[in-house]
Structures are given as C-alpha cells and as structure tokens.
C-alpha cells in the first residue's frame, strides 16, 4: 500500500503545476492525535493547545459536546464558503520554505477585488474508491478581478474547529502549506484552481 499527496494547480482550466504535496504541518498531527485519543463515550475529551492562524495559542478537542444554543462540534472543517479567506484552501505570495511549525501562510493573498487580492470561490470535493487504487480531492477556485496580474507562490489548507457552547468556540488553524516549485501568475480576469489530492494504491 502506498499513500501519496498531490497538489494540482490549473490556470484558466489548464493544468500548469502538479507536484507531490509535502505540506502537512504539526497541527494536523495534534488534531488527529486528539481524535484518536477520544473514547466515544459521550463526554468531552482532553484538549491540546495549538497556534491559530493569528499566532495565538488556542485549545482544540478531538471529542466535544456543547451546551446551550447553538451547540455542536466540527473538528477539522475545510469547506469554507465563497468569499471566506479565514479557512479552507488558501493561496499566498510568500516563498519562505515550509516548516512543521508553520501556523499561517508566509504572505496570504486575501479575498477581494482590490490590488493584490483574489476572489475566493467555493470548494468542491470528489472521491473514487477501488480495490487497488483510491483517491479523495478537495478543490477551490480563485478569480483575479484586481485589474493586474497576481503571482501565487504558496498554497495551504486552514481548518476550522467549532467546539461550540452557547454559540461561541471557533478556532482556525493551518494544517498544510506548500511552496510551489514554480510560481503561477494569474492574469487579470484569470481563474486559478488549486486541488489537494490524497491517493491510496496497493502497488
């Protein structure tokens, strides 16, 4: 069995970059560890401290039960809606090498139509499960409506944990960051699509 991660970047629908993803950062290890440590007992589990995307310490859980209204739990949500740049797949212009302790992109390109901004679209997912090979994907599209070309050098995934009692409890944390081997220039009115793929194969 082999397990691999890939990043695919398309520009105006044409693939311009495909590289092996070497992108996970320590936060994904922490959240997986917490979830594994859960006993599914119906009681809130232990928490751990991570550095959120603002650079502050925050508590996250692997098992959580809220109280009050609204209440609920989402441990590692990435499916951000259009226009939201605080979580989901994100892109940036920084080229600082990735390290396991990264907690944000080096220089995130934010959502918008102003200079140096891209319009963040929705996410799409796909999957295929076979007996010898399988994959899952999550993608997001970014549109340049700024009037000038924008260079993308890094991509990442920010997860959102909502462990909510009485409507409060929301942490955004980086789980993956890759610096592209080749920067991608998005021309004005151009569209960039970033896809993370995780594959399993028996060969």
């Amino acid at each position, binding site marked *: 069995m082999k397990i691999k991660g890939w990043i695919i970047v398309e520009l105006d629908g044409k693939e311009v970059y495909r590289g092996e993803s070497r992108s996970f950062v320590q936060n994904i*290890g922490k959240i997986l560890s917490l979830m594994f440590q859960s006993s599914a007992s119906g009681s809130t589990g232990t928490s751990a401290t991570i550095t959120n995307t603002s650079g502050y310490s925050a508590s996250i859980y692997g098992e959580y039960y809220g109280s009050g209204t609204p209440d609920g739990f989402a441990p590692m949500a990435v499916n951000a809606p259009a226009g939201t740049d605080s979580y989901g797949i994100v892109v940036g212009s920084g080229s600082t090498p990735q390290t396991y302790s990264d907690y944000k992109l080096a220089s995130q390109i934010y959502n918008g139509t102003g200079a140096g901004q891209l319009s963040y679209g929705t996410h799409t997912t796909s999957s295929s499960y076979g007996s010898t090979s399988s994959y899952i994907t999550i993608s997001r599209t970014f549109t340049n409506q700024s009037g000038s070309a924008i260079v993308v050098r890094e991509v990442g995934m920010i997860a959102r944990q909502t462990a909510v009692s009485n409507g409060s409890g929301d942490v955004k944390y980086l789980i993956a960051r890759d610096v592209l081997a080749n920067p991608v220039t998005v021309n004005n009115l151009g569209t960039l699509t970033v896809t993370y793929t995780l594959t*399993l194969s*028996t060969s």
Partner: protein
Amino acid sequence: MSQIYEVEDPSDPYEPFKGWIDIEVRDGEGRVVQKGRHKMHSFNNNFLAVLLTMLSSIGNNNKTTGSVTGDSGSSATIYGEFWYYSGYSNTGGTPIALNASAGTDSFGILVGSGTGAFSLTQYSLASKISNGTSAGQMSYGVTSITDLGVNTSVSPPVYQIQIVRAFTNQTSSTITINEVGLEAKNYWKSDAGTVANVTFLIARDVLSTSYSVPPNGSATVAITIGVTVG
C-alpha cells in the same frame, strides 16, 4: 513499549502517513518469548472516506455526512460535524475515536488469526480474535494512546502518535496472531438521541511473522502512526 520509534522508510522517503507495528509476546512468567516490528501497509478506503467527511465539513452546519463500509459489511453514514441550533443540548461527538476500553473488541487495536491478503476495500479483519476467555479468544486490554509530538531526529520530521493495547490469553491453548487492525468509532449525539454510532476498519496488516501467545501469556501491540510534517 513506550520508546519513541523513528518512523522512516529509506526505500520510500516521503509518505504523508506511515506507521509501524511492534509486537511483543510474553509467557505466563512475564518473559519475552517473541517480538518483532512490521511496517504498516494498511490504510484502506474507510480511512480516506472519514478524512474527506471531516474536510468537507463547513464548521457551522447542522450536519455533514459521509459514508464508510461498517465492520458488518454494510454501508454506514458517518458524520464530520453535527450541530443543533435550538431545542437540544449536549450536542457533539467524535469522528475517528480509537481509545477503546478494556474488554471492548469493536474498536481500537484488534487482532486476528486470518492471513488473507490486504485490499483497500476491506472492512473487517479476515478472522478476528474476539474478546473473552473461551477457546480462541483473548482478553482485550485498555487502548492507550500517547501523543509523541514531532520527531525531528528524522528527515523530514514526523508527528508521531502511538497506540498500544495488550491482549491476554486466558485460555488453555496457544493462540496465533497473524493480522492486526485499527478500527475506529464515529459517534455523534445530542439530548435528542444518538445520530451515529459506527465502528469501521481504517487499517489492516497481515504480519509477515505469526505470533504464538501461550496460555496465560500476553501480546502487546504498539502501532506508531507518523504524519510527515515537513
């Protein structure tokens, strides 16, 4: 079985997820009679499916669901998030719990006697050794899970999580272990009731060596999962 294991495979230097299985067999006097290490080759389709279900979550949705093949072989609905906006409290859950209690053989580390080859579509061990003290059964201990953090002594660095469980043979015959599995539980509920209680296999390895556990002996299985983080 508590040391920090290096998780590195020179033949395949980059894998996002990897792991090792260490097994130590002791006789009734506590002496180590057999031990070994095996690289995991075992994550299956359910592992991908539960990851995708979590990633597909929005973070403030009533529910985000996915599908796995449960350990009975039937398709089962799992949740990546679950909320109530009014009317109920104590809402929440966990998507991929492994911390099973002693005597529980429905999730956590499981062992079996089967030798059938691995497939991505597998949903159960080929022949699970059930918890108990009757013929062919072993007493399942508590599952303990230790967050070992980032191991920077290997390149690239690896975030390590160690899962350990002991299995005791309280029967009068030797029991042979040929396969090891990881089974998770997806559990969600509120005061209105349980919405998901699904156990599903996420990894299975057929061992290259059989491990024979004598009467009154035990086998301790340690699975160290590594997430490559650099």
